[in-house]
Every structure is written in C-alpha cells, then in structure tokens.
C-alpha cells in the first residue's frame, strides 16, 4: 500500500521528465524497475558507455531503501569503480540501511550514482573484488560495507 502509492507518483513524474543521462527502460508493476544511466562529462573511464540499473522495491519502500544494483547485458557493462563490485553490487551509504532516508527517490538515487561515476578517477574495482563476488550470498542491503574512503 505504502509503496504502491508512492511509486505510482514517482512513475508519473518520471514519465513527465527525467534529468539528462537518465532514462527509464521498464517499470512493470511496483517490484522491479530498470533504468539506464550515462555519465555526462568527458570522464575517459565511462566515455560513450551506458549502464543499466535494477531497482527492487519492498512493500515498505520508501521507509526501507530499494535494492539497487548494476546489471550486465550485452551492451551494458558493469562500470569500473572502487565502490562497485564486478557482480554489480554497489557500495554507497545512501543505499544501506543506515544511510537511507525516505526523502530519497529513484531519480535522486540515479543522480547520486551518476555523480559517483563522474567524480571517479580510479580505473579499478574494490579491494577483494574476486573474493567478494565468489563468496557473497547476502543481499546488498545486508552487507556492512565499510564507508571509510570519502575520496572517491
């Protein structure tokens, strides 16, 4: 109830307009949406690339954060970033249980991820990426990421 009403309103706003570099791919029902994002400046790491985001909403959205991951398709790679694992899991405090706020929304999350990519200069994966990707069985929001590095 909570989630459906709010997502319905977000969707009608999204259909009206979205900021540059963000496009809606599908929003069938109120469980899972796909959006594409592009980096708007000339950052060579992300030049001419489009990335696909998958949003999964629980019934208690926006009290609970959505689960947001990058998904890999033939023409949509997982962006290289020290806070993005190669399986698409994103380490961003905003998306964690602690950092989330119900005034955030799908559009503001996309914009945060856009600027997270725009500001990045390190062409690398997080430390321990291979091990994490091979061993993680938890859902993204249950992982206690250590948000120590504010330089990227």
């Amino acid at each position, binding site marked *: 109830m909570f989630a459906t009403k709010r997502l319905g309103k*977000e969707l009608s706003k999204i259909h009206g307009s979205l900021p540059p570099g963000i496009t809606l791919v599908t929003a069938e029902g109120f469980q899972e949406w796909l959006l594409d994002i592009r980096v708007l400046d000339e950052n060579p790491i992300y030049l001419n690339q489009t990335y696909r985001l998958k949003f999964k909403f629980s019934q208690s959205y926006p009290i609970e954060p959505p689960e947001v991951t990058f998904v890999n398709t033939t023409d949509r790679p997982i962006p290289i970033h020290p806070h993005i694992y190669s399986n698409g899991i994103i380490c961003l405090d905003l998306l964690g249980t602690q950092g989330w*706020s119900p005034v955030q929304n799908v559009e503001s999350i996309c914009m945060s991820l856009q600027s997270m990519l725009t500001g990045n200069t390190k062409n690398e994966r997080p430390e321990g990426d291979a091990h994490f990707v091979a061993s993680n069985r938890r859902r993204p929001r249950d992982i206690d990421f250590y948000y120590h590095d504010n330089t990227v």
Partner: protein
Amino acid sequence: MQKFLIPKLYPHDPTNPLLHTNLAMALLKLSSWARVITASSASIALLPENMKAYYYLAQAQIALHETAEAVVNSRKAHALCVKEIEGGGKGGASLGVISQLVMRCLKEDWERREEVRLAGLEGTLRSVVGALERERDGKIAGLGDAGVEGEGGKEREEGIRREYEGMIADVRATFEAAGKVERRKVPDWAIDAIQFGVMLDPVVTKTGNSYERSSIMEHLKRSPTDPLTRDPLRVEDLRPNLALKAACEEFLKENGWAVDW
C-alpha cells in the same frame, strides 16, 4: 449463522466498554452497519476517550453514506491516537490505518457534497431553460396577436427562435463549465515528502521541514533521524504544524479528488 452468533456475542457485563467495542468489531466484519453504530456508541458512552470505538463507528457511517458524521468520528479516532502516542502509549501501530480512514472519509464526504451540488445545478439549469422557452413562446404568440402574419411573420418568428436557441446554448455551456471540478495540480506545500500524498496532520521537525505524521512516525520507528540532515530526531521532537494543517484541510475540503491523486 448470523442470528445464532450475535446474541452469543452480546456483553455479559453491559457496563464494560471493551465488550461493546469488541462486539462492534465483530459486527463490522459481518457488515451489520446499524448495529456497529449502536455498539460503538454504547462503548463511547461508557468510555469517552475510545479510539477503537470511534474507528469502528466511522467505518459503519461511511458504509451507510453518513459521510459528514464519519469525518467527525474518524477525526476523533485520529486525535485520540495522537494523544496516546504523545502520552507515550502504543497508539503508533494504529496511526497509519486511522490516517487512511480519515482520508477516505474526507474523500467520500467531498463526493457526496459534489453530488448534491451537481443535482442543485441541474435543477437550476432546468428552471432557467424553462423560463427562456416560455419567454420565447410568449414573444412568438405576441406576433400573431399584433397581426404580423404571412412571409414577414414567418421571418420574425425564425429570428426569435434563433435568438433564444443561442441564449439557451450559452446557458447550458456556462452551467456545464460550473459543474466540472477543476482538477488542478496538488500544490507542493500540501505534499508529504515521504508518502507523496496530501498531508492530513503535518508535523514539523527541528530543521523546519514538515511531514505527514503517520509517515514520519514510520520512518522514526526504523531510524531516529531527521530525513534530510540525519541528525538525531525523536518522536518527542515533532511539533504539529497547525497553520499548514489548516491549509491542507481547506484544500482537501474543496478538492476531495486529491486523496487519490
């Protein structure tokens, strides 16, 4: 089944308000509206600060289209719920459903008032059109009495008919426009930044931002922080925003459609 069950449910101790409240709840499930009203009123008479009884009473009144009464009683349930929360009680669990009920009552009451207003407009329109038609017929009859006949008479009559046809069309168009509710945009000041709905009971945080009480309560249950600054925020820090509440009430009174917006 019903006939058998209800006498068994009747309170053994008629002075205990809880038994009347529980009876009201059972009758509500059986859609036995009039008896819900009797039982919850009996409960309220024994225990005036009776959130649940007002909650059941308002639901029965909606079902019986007594929308104005339903608005009043759902508001009473809401006020009692807020009072319980402020007194440190466990009303928090009910605030969401009670807020939804108040909104539903407001919408149904608006729809009812709209129906009455439109019926009134229709009656007025019929009278005005009827008066114009009589005036037209009088003028046409007047032509014959004044001895205007033949080709000239026919032309004069046609002229009168055309003139009144135009007037009646204008009147109909004007009434039609008046009957349409202008579904304007919901103003931003009325919208809760958490649920994105029109606010019923806005409360303000230390930062000066207002949220719907039932929304921010849900958030605080999970995380005792200000949604914008993430500074510590407790239920006790919330203050009602009475001016904004009055403005939202005024808006909803004229724009009941906005409940479902």
